[in-house]
């Protein structure tokens, strides 16, 4: 790994990063960059694929994640990956999701340069769009969260509040700010040969304190681990079908969560299909069976079915929760479920492309207690 420092000019972190990205794009070594960039209204940032450096005005630290970047990269690469490199700027959770999608043949990393960004967490999209503070969310973040005042925590999405891994892995380049004095510089790490090649001609400087970042990351993890432990302990009571049913009471079967989830890759969700369509008499018969029949009938089945399909690959990005119109705190169920299920298979989604998804691995000694002795 090569570590360099990007000097912050005129106290403008966002501008300095953009200068760097423009230099990358202008170098001719990549043909386009996928970056989070504000919509004209400035209400939100979206992934934007930029070919002309002049059009680049990204805000890669803006604390918001409206859509799954992994899904966007899947769209870009699944049918046919690019013939020349393109750079994609992503947060850690989205890189993990992308690795899962690669394993599931829904995306390709061919000619994809991953530029990871240290993630201080993101705010719900509505909080970001109508931010209650006087500053922009990005400035608020820079001033509070990164300077270790805790004020920003109050706005974090619950998934980010307990995120155990905000540092990108499986990347070519990392733009880092943990353990750095952001008034002065930003860290640029090259993790791969191609990463080194890309930053080679961009003017960067030696970093001043290479131990500080390590320590800051360690501190951040310890803090998150504590918050996570509290969170998981609080959710221990979520067991049994009655509790689960009660939890999903507000679900209106809109399937927004599945739309937002980077792992849900089916072209057509079984629950959107005609499988559950039936003649009126069947519904009436079901009503007659028990005297009553709740409609739509398959909301809970959908939630559990979806969980069954994606939970082993769940990277805990929390986009499902953000997408829920009725604000069901889905992380309270999905984080413990993911932790437990992944532990059973000793599986680490997003960690390593070579680690096979449990569904396709057969181990003779697995779950002996379930079968015959």
């Amino acid at each position, binding site marked *: 790994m090569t570590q360099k420092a990007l000097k912050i000019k005129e106290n403008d972190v966002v501008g300095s990063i953009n200068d760097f990205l423009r230099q990358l794009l202008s170098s001719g070594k990549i043909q386009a960059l996928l970056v989070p960039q504000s919509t004209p209204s400035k209400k939100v940032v979206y992934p934007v694929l930029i070919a002309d450096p002049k059009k680049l005005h990204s805000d890669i630290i803006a604390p918001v994640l409206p859509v799954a970047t992994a899904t966007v990269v899947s769209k870009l690469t*699944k049918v046919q990956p690019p013939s020349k490199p393109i750079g994609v700027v992503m947060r850690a959770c989205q890189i993990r999701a992308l690795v899962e999608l690669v394993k599931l043949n829904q995306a390709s990393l061919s000619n994809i340069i991953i530029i990871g960004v240290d993630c201080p967490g993101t705010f719900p999209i509505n909080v970001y769009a109508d931010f209650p503070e006087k500053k922009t969310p990005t400035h608020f973040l820079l001033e509070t969260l990164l300077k270790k005042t805790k004020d920003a925590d109050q706005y974090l999405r619950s998934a980010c509040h307990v995120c155990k891994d905000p540092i990108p892995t499986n990347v070519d380049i990392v733009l880092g700010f943990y353990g750095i004095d952001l008034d002065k510089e930003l860290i640029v790490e090259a993790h791969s040969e191609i990463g080194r090649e890309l930053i080679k001609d961009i003017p960067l400087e030696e970093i001043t304190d290479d131990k500080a970042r390590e320590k800051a990351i360690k501190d951040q993890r310890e803090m998150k681990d504590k918050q996570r432990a509290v969170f998981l302990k609080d959710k221990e009571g979520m067991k049994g079908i009655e509790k689960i049913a009660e939890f999903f009471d507000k679900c209106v079967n809109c399937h927004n969560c599945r739309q937002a989830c980077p792992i849900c890759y089916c072209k057509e969700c079984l629950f959107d299909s005609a499988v559950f369509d039936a003649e009126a008499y069947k519904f009436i018969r079901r009503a007659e069976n028990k005297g009553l029949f709740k409609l739509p009938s398959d909301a809970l089945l959908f939630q559990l079915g979806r969980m069954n399909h994606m939970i082993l690959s769940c990277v805990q990005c929390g986009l499902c929760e953000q997408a829920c119109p009725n604000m069901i705190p889905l992380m309270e169920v999905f984080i413990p479920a993911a932790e437990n299920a992944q532990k059973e298979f000793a599986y680490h989604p997003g960690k390593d492309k070579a680690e096979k998804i449990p569904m396709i691995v057969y181990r003779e000694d697995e779950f002996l207690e379930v079968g015959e002795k």
Partner: protein
Amino acid sequence: MTKKTETIGAVAVIGGGIAGVQAALDLADMGYKIYVLEKSPTIGGVMAQLDKTFPTNDCSMCILSPKLVDCARHQNIEILTNTTVQTLEGTPGNFTIKAVKKPRYIDIEKCTSCGSCEKVCPISLPNSFEYGLVKRKAIYKPFPQAIPNAYVIDKEGDGKNRGCIDCMRCVKECKSGAINHEQTPENLSLQVGAVIIAAGSPPFDPVTKPEFGYRTYKNVLTSVEFERILSASGPTQGKILRPSDQKHPTKIAWVHCVGSRDASVNHEYCSAMCCMYTAKEAIIAKEHASDIEPTVFYIDVRSYGKDFDKYINRAKKEHHLRYIRSRISEITEEPKTKNLNIKYEDDTGDFKQETYDLVVLSVGLCGAGERRNELMDLLGFDANEFKYVRTSPEDPVVIKPGVFVAGSFLEPQAIPESVMQASAAAANAAALLKDSRGTLVKEKKYPLEKDVSTEKPRIGVFLCNCGINIGGYVDVPAVAEYIKTLPDVTFVETNVYTCSEDTQKKIVDAIKKYDLNRILVAACTPRTHEPLFQKSLRDAGLNPHLLEMTNIREQCSWVHMDEPKKATEKAKQLIAMTVAKTRFLQPIQEAEIPVLQKALVIGGGIAGMTAALSLADQGYETVLVEKEPKLGGYLHNVYYTVDGIDIPKLIKQMTEKITKHPLIKVHTESQVKSLNGYVGSYESEIQTPKETLSFTHGVIIIAVGANEYKPHTYHYNKDPRVLTQSELEKDLSVLTKEDIHDGETFVMIQCVESRDEKRPYCSRICCMQAVKNALKIKELNQRAEVFILYRDLMTYGFKEKYYKDAREKGVMFLQYDPEKKPEVDSKNGLIVKVHEPMIGDQLRIPADHLILSTGLQPNPDNPLIGKLLKVPVNDDGFFLEAHVKLRPVDFSTRGVFVAGNCHIPKFINESIYQAQAAAARAATILCKPTLKAEPNVAFVDDDLCSGCSICVSVCPYNAIERVEESKKEKTVIHAKVNEGLCQGCGTCVSACPSSAIQQRGFKDKQLLPMIEQLTKTK
């Protein structure tokens, strides 16, 4: 103009054990008419009586029974039970067999095997299937899965007990009128082109060895009797109880080599399978009851087969089998407790005595041999010194032209060898009769299929009483009334036996009369009966897959005999569920896979050459690919054999036959570069020294051989006096008497870097190679000294005689403990040091030559070849067949077969019959112009499939691939099922998160209605 054939396209198979059944099925599949002549009332042989099989611990009956059913169902096989051969006359291609078929007194067409006759029969006789451990009636069915699936009357009794007394109670009881006490013997005269003798050999009866107390002491059993005790369907339902007091024994001893390796009964040969089944019986016994303490008294543990050594190690380490190396002298009984005392001499020479609750005598398949001798006399076969039929090692399954042999009639042996020989015999018969193939078999013509796919369902339901098997517990008329109320049910009928021939006519008539388009039979299991009813649908012009079955016997009446009311309710619900599915049945057309009637054989050693010749002799064009410049393979490292094969002559003859054969094309110095396709239509690229050739073919035989392992220990390669066995053999082949001086000492060490953690398999051939070379040395100079330091001497079967020969000629055999391996000092002359338990100290042998037996190692390319051909290799690097017992030359991947040393190391005759077996199995595919794929294959909905390829990964048959297709100018990625490879297991369906892959006959929209029906409350 019809082609005039000089041979008869029929084969008689004498004996209906596993060997006979395999030979019959192979030849019947190839298009020959088969007569199976079986002396007893059922086919199945000894294998039907076994509980489990080593080394996989599969249930013996469970793996055998489907083969028996296949045999019974096969339109080209006629099973003649109670039939004994009288004479065999004629010439190869045209024999006449005269035989007598004793009366069964039962019409097997009418008998439904309901068992009511048995209940009223007053006569009890010892049940011979259970070795007399329990009784049976005079009218009986040998065992539940007997084929023919019919009763038989024993009129003769067994000498001590009288048989049937003609009381006629059974006649009154039988509702299908199947019993006929007036049947008389029938004289049969069969015209056949070839004969296969697979008459087997009974287990040894230890009554002739009084020192073991068999039949004197109640708690001394034979191993075959113990198999029945272990069997869940046996006399004790699998509970281990000893005969004297029906109490559970804990201390059980097994005694090896009872009736084999024993000069006192003239059986100076090894029975080849007893060491392994003993370990199996002990392991299974421990699985039944963990408090059992098994002890095995042995001479050698002959674990020479595939994965056998690992099995024995597991037996010792995990199941704590205690092995004591000793030939026991006597068993005595304690009169009060009926416990048994065993006196034995341990390896230090001390006499000891131990007490056991039960003793099991491991008897070989080397019984008195009366049947064998009788048949051999009758048919005029030449006998060897063991009174077994003599064949030559180059033609191991040929008794004489047109007469072939397989199984333990030839030599005591385990199941896989029997199965291989059976297929080899089939290959030989098929080569002889190739011009008359298909002349005596008839293909059934069916009416055109009516398209009912869009019609509203009109379901016909046939409810079976199965005599009283169902009707006695389930209120069948009440069930019928209920079923009539279900949607789309047009017609309901109840039958005494739905499977009977007259009901088949009724089904056909009802389909026509009521215009039925979906059929449901509620009876027994589809496993045995589905094809029968499917044929009835075809007779009526319906697609056979418009049939569903509900099992209301095994899954209802038989398990709820105590609760008839609830059983009736359950039957209603089960059938209602099936009706719910039947409404959504759709016709299925199996894909027809065209078969290119050509073969590719990879490897030109003895196995590959034999396979190529066998295929070509059967009329199939064959390409043989060999990577070396010359054919012959490992034969070039063999200089002489104990059984007198002239190796150079063999290579020369085979090479000549192959190069002159018009149907064989040989490519030497060549390799298969790539392979595409599947069974029936492969395309391979062969890299020859000159060019890359493309060859299309239907099957592949892998025979890539193995090499001698070169050791890294015992100063090999450093000291010129240290050689491997093969290197010694090469030297000995050119030496003369003068070259070896008196007292010149050869020390051979067996199992060098073999049977250890790194190479945990026995190479099977090295003990014999040592014995062979020792005999050669003694032949050159009787006064030379030969020591063989061994662990277990694997001279199984008739090879035992060479071991004895060597001992008599003064070869010294010293057993060593693998924990105390021999050591070699080479400073001042070679000194071999080995621990000798009798003297309790190290023995120092000054040696002139040190010979290392290292065994064979698999070709290092095997994993690559395996990947190319989609077939597995085992942990040791040898190819892994589909089933170690019953499919020893097949792979799970259809169309690929294996033979020779790449399967496991083996002798030349074994490679020859395995190669012929592979050729026979391959020919069962090549003989037909097309293959039918599985009906219930998976299929993909491209619109739903995301191409994630989970299904590709989980498919055990490599039948699914991810494809990119252009659709309306867009690239679409999806999974695609190869119907030629799909076996319809459904694994992909359950793995697909998108429900994009479904299985014909088991679609969601067929299964979900069943669940809905079941969960419906009234």
